[in-house]
């Protein structure tokens, strides 16, 4: 009861109460309107407008036409309107009129005479009007009582109906409260008719599904990153522990171990750089300068051409000036990663084709290479961080699997479109198309020294891990 009282004090607290109040108020208003309409209709019922003619037609009646039927009292301002009206409507009561007409003859002549006199007529009408007033009053009172009772009943029904309508909402609230980061796989799974509430629940479910996949991707990324970071750390530590607990360790063993630990730390540094590049690419760029893509690719090729020669790969190039607005370091990284990928995932005697062109002001870079067959359904997966193709064996595995995801992030940061297709006979064909620089607000490239930051050697993101494998195995 106290709860109800407190709710009554704060009726706005729940939708259920508001709906109940709304239902009640609506019922009350429509009831009142109905009552008023009824009242007005009754009040102006046809009988109340009995014209003089009816009275005149009466055989015994001899009322001068001048005698107005309505006994209009002097219009006084302090008189309620309804009373005034009621009086204007004269003697309308059927009984009051019928009696003089039909029963007049049965009355003593004196009475008849009195009634026939104009005063008598007035008196009859007054009595009729009073009777009518009483009837109307009764109608008002009884209808009001009925309305009040029905209002209470309708409020109670409204409370029940609102509760029933809102029940799915309460279920959803309870279910949604239970869902946290730990059990994002749960769903509201509301059943019932396909109404607005069901749509809401389904929308929330779809939102949860998207959240779940985003969380999963994030979790996978963190797991992969921590694996890639902690494993070399563990290796470095194990190497040091191994040599320190070796009773027969020599200066030579120490030197070998130190060299290996250094190599491990270099790899970690490269991984951290790659992760930073990825983060920077995903964050977007805040400064764009006007760059010539062909010059950047040419610089990159200067490093990769000799390495391609070592691997016996043919490099075909077709470079023409293509301008774009972007961050030089990120574009360099994109180019380096694409070239490195093309070199690394190639076959003996294969080839790499690099093309830079400008099409309707849009700079376009194409890097296609021969290589092992890439299944078409695996291509998109390669753009995800830490993804490598199929069952590459660990001992032969190269890179961290970040190269193409960095390319994708950098391309996205530059609003460029990235198209990766498997080559016809294996390998990959990657096409990056940048938006025309004219559309962009460009800052002039700071100086000819390529920015104030110290230049790092052009290095691919996912660096080669081979060449350190197994050297300490089975010693």
């Amino acid at each position, binding site marked *: 009861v106290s709860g109800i009282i407190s709710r009554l004090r704060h009726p706005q607290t729940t939708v259920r109460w508001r709906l109940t109040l709304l239902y009640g108020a609506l019922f009350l208003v429509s009831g009142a309107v109905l009552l008023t309409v009824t009242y007005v209709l009754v009040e102006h019922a046809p009988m109340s407008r009995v014209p003089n003619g009816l009275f005149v037609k009466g055989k015994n009646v001899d009322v001068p036409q001048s005698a107005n039927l309505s006994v209009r009292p002097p219009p006084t301002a302090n008189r309620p309107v309804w009373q005034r009206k009621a009086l204007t409507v004269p003697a309308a009561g059927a009984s009051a009129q019928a009696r003089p007409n039909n029963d007049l003859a049965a009355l003593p002549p004196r009475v008849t005479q009195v009634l026939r006199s104009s005063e008598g007529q007035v008196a009859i009408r007054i009595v009729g009007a009073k009777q009518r007033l009483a009837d109307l009053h009764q109608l008002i009172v009884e209808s009001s009582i009925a309305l009040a009772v029905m209002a209470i009943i309708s409020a109670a029904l409204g409370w029940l109906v609102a509760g029933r309508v809102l029940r799915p909402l309460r279920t959803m609230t309870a279910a949604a409260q239970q869902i946290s980061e730990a059990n994002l796989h749960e769903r509201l799974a509301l059943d019932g008719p396909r109404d607005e509430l069901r749509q809401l629940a389904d929308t929330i479910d779809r939102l949860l599904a998207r959240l779940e996949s985003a969380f999963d991707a994030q979790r996978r990324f963190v*797991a992969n990153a921590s*694996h890639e970071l902690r*494993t070399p750390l563990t290796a470095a530590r194990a*190497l040091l522990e191994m040599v320190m607990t070796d009773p027969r360790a020599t200066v030579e063993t120490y030197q070998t171990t130190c060299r290996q630990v250094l190599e491990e730390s270099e790899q970690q540094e490269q991984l951290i750089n790659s992760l930073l590049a990825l983060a920077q690419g995903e964050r977007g760029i805040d400064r764009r300068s006007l760059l010539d893509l062909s010059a950047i690719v040419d610089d990159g090729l200067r490093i990769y051409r000799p390495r391609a020669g070592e691997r016996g790969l043919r490099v075909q190039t077709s470079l023409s000036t293509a301008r774009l607005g972007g961050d030089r370091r990120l574009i360099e990284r994109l180019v380096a990663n694409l070239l490195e990928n093309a070199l690394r995932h190639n076959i003996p005697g294969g080839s790499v084709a690099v093309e830079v062109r400008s099409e309707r002001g849009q700079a376009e870079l194409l890097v296609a290479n021969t290589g092992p067959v890439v299944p078409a359904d695996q291509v998109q997966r390669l753009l995800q961080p830490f993804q490598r193709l199929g*069952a590459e064996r*660990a001992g032969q595995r190269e890179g961290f699997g970040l190269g193409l995801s960095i390319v994708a992030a950098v391309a996205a940061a530059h609003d460029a479109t990235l198209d990766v297709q498997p080559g016809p006979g294996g390998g990959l064909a990657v096409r990056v198309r940048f938006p025309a620089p004219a559309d962009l607000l460009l800052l002039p490239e700071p100086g000819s020294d390529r920015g104030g930051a110290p230049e790092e050697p052009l290095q691919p993101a996912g660096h080669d891990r081979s060449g350190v494998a197994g050297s300490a195995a089975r010693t």
Partner: protein
Amino acid sequence: MRVLVVEDHPRLAATVATVLRREGMAVDVAFDGREALERATLTTYDVVVLDRDLPGLHGDEVCRSLVASGARTGVLMLTAAGTLEDRVEGLAIGADDYLPKPFHLAELVARIRALARRSAPGLPPTLSHGDLKLDSARRLVTRGGQPIALSPKEFAVLELLLSAQGAVVSTEQLLERAWDDATDPFTNAVRMTVSRLRAKLGDPPMVETVTPIGYRIGGAG
């Protein structure tokens, strides 16, 4: 004791293998999940040290297969993800122990020994026969209170013979438990090691030759 190290990082795998061999274990290395399962079907390992994040076949799958095969192999899982959920999940899959990276090699060795003891139930940490005592955790061998310095292989062979508690251990068994896959199966390494071990243990002789099957601990017992 025969141990399989499954780790995709070549240098870490090599380092762990080196240290375990120094501890007298026979160690094989696999770099991915498939190779690990192939090796596990050929050889019964006492302990498998299993990295969880493996290329190809995931470490979880390898663990499930190992457990499903019914072998009495102890599985020690290594992982970079060291959260409580990961550890619980790893143990739920069927791993016997769990060690997050980065770890201390000393702890890894101690856990492997503990697991091996569990997979061969009923053996105390210290094995003995007469006045000969072998403490596998501290890698100490004493006879009549006098410490004896043994090479890792000699130690492993003595440990196997003492574990058999007088039963005959065949040359093949010794080869499988104390030597890794890199060893030529037609080697006379076992005979050489046993003869060196006999010499170090002194008189009266404790290792008997049961021709043509193998060896057993006996004699002065």
